[in-house]
C-alpha cells in the first residue's frame, strides 16, 4: 500500500508498522522500547510522530476530498502517535520532522531523563548507549531540573553475571519481555509502580540459560555484563565480528578486546542463525582465554623437565625424533572445534608422515552429516511439527531458541533495508504457544521439555529401541499399512502416542527432526532415526558434539580405516602422537599409555594432565584467536576471525604445520590459513576468505555421509552414569570464575532417592570414577533424573553417552554439611 513519510512516497506491505515505514523511507525516529525480534508495546513513547490518513465517507464509500486541492483530505490524529504500535494504512501520511514532532520528541527525552542519574562517566554503557545518543540527537541540551532525583540501588547483582543499576532504568520493559518472549523463562518483572517502578526477580537470581542477552538489549546502562564491569569504555574496545566455536549453532559474536585481553562478548546479528541472541555459556565463558597460566612459548622436555624454547627448536626436535618412524604408527588428533583450515593442515601433516591415523575428538560413531540437505535453523523456526531427541538447550542453545520461535508460529519477517523489522506487529506479549507441535525424547527431563506438548523420558539404555520401534511403525505405515506391533514394548510411549507423533510429522509440510549425541553415539539408533525421518518426510538437523565436528567430517579429517580412529591412538600400535587441544590423560589408563610413547606432542593453550606428560608442548590459541572457517549445524559455512589477544607465540594448528614443514624441509599444504584456503577452494568450491559475517550455505554432499563407522560388533550401550551435554564447558570452568560462581561446579545429578540410597546429600563434593575417568563433581538432587541414573556433564575426552560409574570407588571430598559448619 502507498504511504507518504515526510515527502517520501513509498510502497509498503500491509501490516508493516509505521516505525519500519519511516526507516524504510530513509527517515529516522528515536525509539527505546521496540526491539527487533520482540513485540512492540509502545512503552517508552519516544517514537512519536504526527500521523494522518484519508477517510472514507460512510454513505458513499468514497474518499472525502479536500475542497481546495481535490485530493483525498488528510485527517490528522489529534496527538502525536507512537509509530511502533501503529499499522500503516492506505494513503497514510507520516510527519517526523515538523516543529510539533520535534517538540514532542524533545519533551519525551526530557521526561525520560527526569529520574535518570546522568552518571555516564562511570557507566559501562557510556559511548554506546541508546539513551545517550537519543538525548544528544533529540534532547534540548540543557536541564531544567533542580530537584532531587529518585534514588535506588546502584549495583544490584541480579546474578553473578549481570549487574542492575536501578536508577538508570527507563522502564522500557525490553528485559522483562525478552524473558517471556525469547527463552520463555519468566524470571524478571516490574515491581512497584509509577516513579518507584523497578526491575526485580521473584527468587534470587535469574534461573535461565539465556540471561546475558538482556545486557545487549537494555537501551541504557541498567543491565550490564559483570565480567566486563569497569574493564574499559566502549570506544576503547577493539571489536571482532566472528562466529562462536563454543557449540555447533554457529552464533555470531562480537568480541570486545582491550590491551590484548578479551573483556566481553556480545551477540552479533545473524538473522538466519542466532538473530541477536546467544546463550550464557557462549557469552560469559570467555574468561579462560585471559587466564594467567596460558602457555605462550613452546616447551621441550630436557632431562625430564619441560623447558621453554623457540618454535624452530621445538619443530627440529620433533622432526629429529620422528625421522624414520613408521608413518602408520604416528597419530594426529584434533578437537572437534578446530577450524576447517586446521583440518586441512592436519591432513597435510598426516599425508606427509604417511599416517592414516588422523581423527577428531569427540566424534560419535555415526555421521553427523544428514542425508541430503540439513534443515536450516529457519526451517526449525518455521516448522509446524518438531521431533527432538536430545537436549538442544545444552548442546546448541540457539537451536533451543529457534524451536521456541516455532512455537509462536510467526514466520520470520523479511528484512528491510534497515535490517530486521524494528516493530513486528504480529509479535505480541504472552503469545499463546503451539506446544502441541513439539515432541521431545531424552533420557532425563530436559529444560526444553516444559515447552513441549509431549515429552518422553525413556530409560537411557533403550533410546535405541525407542527409535527403532518408531522407525518400524513409521515405515510400516508409509503406504497406509498396519504396523506389526512387534516393537511396541520398546516404544516408551503408548502406541496411540506414537501414531499421533507419526501422523503429525507426516501430515505436516515442514516437519523437522532434531537429534544429537544420544542418537549419533549408537549407529543403530542413528540408522533408525534416519529411517524415521525419511518415512515421515521430515528434514533433519543433527547436532554434533563440537562446533565444527560436521565440517571436519565433511572435509574428511577422518582416519583412513575405522581401526585407526582416535581410540586406537592409545594402543601400543602407536609410537608418536600429535594431540591438539585434547587432554586424554584425564583417564589414568590412557596416561600410562601416553608415558610409553616415543614422542608425545601436545598443542595446548593451557597446562593439562596431557601436556605434563608431553615431550614437546606447543602453545595454542583459543577459539577466539583463530582465523578460519567453521560449518554449523545447518551446513552453513561461517567465518571465524581472530581477536587480538595477547598469547605470546601461540598459533593455531596451521602454524604448527608451518613450523614442522620447515623442520622437515618441505612446504606443506595448510602451512597457513591462506594456503589451507586454497585447498578448501578445491574441496568445497568456496572462497573462505570472502565469506560474509553471516556465512553462506554449503551445498550438501550427495550420497551417504562419510564419517559413519562400520558397525562390526554392535554393542548396546549400558551403564549407570549418563554423560550429558553441557552449555557451560566444564573443562574451562576453573578459569571462568564468574560463570562458575553463577552456574556452580560441575554437577553430579541424581534423583533424591538415588542420593539417599547412597548416603549423599546435595552439595557434597565427590570424586567418582566414571568410565575410568575420575570426575570431581558436586552432588545435586534433581527430580528430573530417573532413579538409579547418575548424570555428569561432558568433557571433550568423555563424550556424551552411557558409562559405568564406579560407585564403590567414590570418594567424598567435602560434605555439604561440613561446609556449612
Amino acid at each position, binding site marked *: 500500500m502507498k504511504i507518504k513519510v515526510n515527502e517520501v512516497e513509498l510502497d509498503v506491505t500491509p501490516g508493516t508498522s509505521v516505525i519500519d515505514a519511516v526507516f524504510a523511507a530513509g527517515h529516522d525516529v528515536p525509539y527505546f522500547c521496540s526491539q527487533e525480534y520482540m513485540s512492540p508495546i509502545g512503552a517508552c513513547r519516544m517514537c512519536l510522530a504526527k500521523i494522518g490518513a484519508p477517510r472514507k465517507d460512510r454513505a458513499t464509500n468514497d474518499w472525502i476530498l479536500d475542497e481546495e486541492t481535490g485530493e483525498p483530505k488528510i485527517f490528522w490524529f489529534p496527538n502525536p502517535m507512537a509509530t511502533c504500535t501503529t499499522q500503516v494504512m492506505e494513503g497514510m501520511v507520516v510527519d517526523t520532522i515538523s516543529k510539533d514532532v520535534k517538540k514532542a520528541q524533545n519533551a519525551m527525552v526530557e521526561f525520560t531523563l527526569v529520574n535518570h542519574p546522568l552518571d555516564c*562517566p*562511570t557507566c559501562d554503557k557510556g559511548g554506546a548507549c541508546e539513551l545517550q545518543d537519543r538525548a544528544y540527537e533529540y534532547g534540548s541540551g540543557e536541564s531544567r531540573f533542580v530537584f532531587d532525583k529518585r534514588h535506588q540501588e546502584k549495583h544490584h547483582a541480579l546474578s553473578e553475571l549481570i549487574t542492575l543499576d536501578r536508577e538508570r532504568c527507563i522502564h522500557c520493559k525490553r528485559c522483562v519481555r525478552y524473558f517471556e518472549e525469547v527463552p520463555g523463562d519468566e524470571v524478571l518483572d516490574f515491581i512497584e509502580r509509577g516513579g518507584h517502578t523497578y526491575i526485580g526477580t521473584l527468587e534470587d537470581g535469574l534461573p535461565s540459560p539465556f540471561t546475558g542477552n538482556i545486557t545487549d538489549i537494555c537501551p541504557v546502562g541498567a543491565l550490564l555484563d559483570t565480567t566486563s*564491569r569497569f574493564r574499559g*569504555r566502549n*570506544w576503547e574496545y577493539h571489536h571482532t565480528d566472528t562466529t562462536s566455536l563454543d557449540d555447533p549453532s554457529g552464533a555470531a559474536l562480537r568480541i570486545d578486546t582491550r590491551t590484548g585481553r578479551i573483556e566481553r562478548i556480545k551477540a552479533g546479528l545473524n538473522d538466519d542463525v542466532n538473530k541477536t541472541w546467544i546463550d550464557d555459556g557462549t557469552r560469559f565463558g570467555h574468561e579462560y582465554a585471559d587466564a594467567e597460566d596460558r602457555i605462550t612459548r613452546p616447551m621441550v622436555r630436557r632431562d625430564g623437565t619441560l623447558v621453554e624454547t623457540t618454535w624452530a627448536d621445538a619443530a627440529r626436535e620433533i622432526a629429529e625424533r620422528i625421522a624414520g618412524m613408521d608413518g602408520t604408527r604416528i597419530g594426529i588428533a584434533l578437537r572437534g572445534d578446530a577450524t576447517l583450515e586446521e583440518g586441512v593442515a592436519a591432513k597435510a601433516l598426516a599425508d606427509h608422515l604417511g599416517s592414516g591415523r588422523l581423527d577428531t575428538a569427540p566424534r560419535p560413531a555415526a555421521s553427523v552429516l544428514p542425508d541430503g540437505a540439513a534443515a536450516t535453523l529457519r526451517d526449525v523456526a518455521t516448522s509446524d511439527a518438531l521431533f527432538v531427541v536430545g537436549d538442544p538447550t545444552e548442546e546448541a542453545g540457539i537451536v533451543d531458541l529457534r524451536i521456541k520461535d516455532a512455537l509462536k508460529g510467526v514466520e520470520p519477517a523479511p528484512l528491510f533495508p534497515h535490517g530486521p523489522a524494528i516493530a513486528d506487529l504480529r509479535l505480541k506479549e504472552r503469545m499463546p504457544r503451539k506446544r502441541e507441535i513439539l515432541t521431545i525424547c531424552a533420557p532425563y527431563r530436559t529444560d526444553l521439555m516444559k515447552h513441549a506438548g509431549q515429552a518422553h523420558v525413556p530409560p537411557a539404555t533403550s533410546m535405541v529401541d525407542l527409535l527403532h520401534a518408531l522407525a518400524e511403525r513409521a515405515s510400516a505405515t508409509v503406504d497406509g499399512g498396519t504396523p506389526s506391533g512387534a516393537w511396541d514394548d520398546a516404544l516408551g510411549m503408548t502406541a496411540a502416542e506414537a501414531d499421533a507423533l507419526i501422523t503429525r510429522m507426516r501430515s505436516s509440510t515442514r516437519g523437522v527432526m532434531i537429534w544429537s549425541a544420544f542418537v549419533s553415539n549408537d549407529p543403530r539408533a542413528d540408522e533408525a532415526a534416519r529411517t524415521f525421518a525419511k518415512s515421515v518426510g521430515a528434514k533433519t538437523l543433527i547436532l554434533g558434539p563440537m562446533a565444527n565436528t560436521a565440517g571436519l567430517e565433511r572435509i574428511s579429517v577422518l582416519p583412513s580405516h575405522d581401526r585407526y580412529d582416535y581410540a586406537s591412538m592409545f594402543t601400543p600400535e602407536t609410537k608418536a602422537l600429535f594431540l591438539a587441544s585434547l587432554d586424554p590423560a584425564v583417564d589414568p589408563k590412557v596416561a600410562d599409555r601416553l608415558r610409553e610413547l616415543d614422542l608425545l606432542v601436545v598443542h595446548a593453550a593451557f597446562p593439562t594432565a596431557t601436556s605434563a606428560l608431553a615431550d614437546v608442548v606447543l602453545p595454542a590459541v583459543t577459539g577466539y584467536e583463530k582465523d578460519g572457517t567453521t560449518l554449523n549445524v545447518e551446513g552453513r559455512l561461517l567465518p571465524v576471525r581472530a581477536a587480538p589477544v595477547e598469547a605470546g607465540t601461540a598459533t593455531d594448528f596451521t602454524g604448527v604445520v608451518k613450523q614442522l614443514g620447515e623442520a622437515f624441509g618441505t612446504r606443506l599444504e595448510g602451512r597457513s590459513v591462506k594456503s589451507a584456503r586454497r585447498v578448501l577452494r578445491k574441496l568445497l568450491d568456496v572462497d573462505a576468505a570472502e565469506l560474509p559475517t553471516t556465512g553462506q550455505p554449503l551445498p550438501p554432499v550427495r550420497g551417504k555421509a562419510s564419517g559413519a563407522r562400520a558397525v562390526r560388533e554392535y554393542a548396546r550401550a549400558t551403564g549407570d552414569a549418563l554423560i550429558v551435554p553441557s552449555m557451560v564447558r566444564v573443562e574451562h570452568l576453573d578459569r571462568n570464575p564468574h560463570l562458575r560462581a553463577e552456574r556452580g561446579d560441575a554437577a553430579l545429578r541424581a534423583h533424591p532417592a538415588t542420593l539417599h540410597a547412597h548416603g549423599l546429600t546435595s552439595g557434597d563434593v565427590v570424586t567418582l570414577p566414571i568410565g575410568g575417568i575420575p570426575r570431581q563433581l558436586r552432588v545435586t538432587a534433581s527430580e528430573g533424573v530417573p532413579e538409579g541414573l547418575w548424570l555428569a556433564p561432558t568433557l571433550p575426552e568423555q563424550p556424551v553417552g552411557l558409562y559405568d560409574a564406579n560407585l564403590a570407588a567414590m570418594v567424598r571430598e567435602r560434605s555439604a554439611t561440613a561446609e556449612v559448619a
Partner: protein
Amino acid sequence: MSILNVAKGMGVTLSHLFKKPVTVQYPEEKAQIQARFRGRHHLLRHPDTGLEKCIGCSLCAAACPAYAIYVEAAENDPDDPTSAGERYASIYEINMLRCIFCGFCEEACPTGAVVLGHEFELADFRYDHFVYGKEDMLVGVKGSKWQRREAERKGGEVELGFQAGPRPELEGVDY
C-alpha cells in the same frame, strides 16, 4: 634608507642596554611562572574526604589528541573507597613524552580530577621514566620523577626551579 632610520634602530638597541635584564639565572634563581601556565598534571583529591576525584572514566584519554593517557578502572571497595562513587582509576598513566600540554584532558574531565600544574622540569634519562603513574601525579607529590629521585639520593627536599601564582583549579597543590 636614511641615516636617521639607522640611528633610530640603533637607539632602540642602545636604550635596552641600560634596562634591567629579563634573563633569569635559572636554575640558580627561581623562574616566575604565570598562573595559567600548563605543566605536568596533578591528580586531585576531594579536600574534605581525601578521596580521589578521578573516577577512571577515561574521558581524558578519549580527549587527548596525543594518545598520551592510559586509564584502567576498577570497582571501589565500599568499606574502603579510593574515590567517591562506584569506580576509581586503578591505573592512570600519562606519557609525558607524548603529551603536548594542551589541557584537553583537564577540559574533558567531569570531576576536575586532572589539572595541569606548573611543573615543567621533566627531563629524564629513560623512556619509562616519562610515564607518570598515579603515584607520580596524585596531589602531594612534588617534583618530577627525576627531581624526586635526586632528592632521595641526596636525602633532601625536592627543589623546584620556579614559583607560581595561585590557581583555583589546583586545589590542594602546594608549590
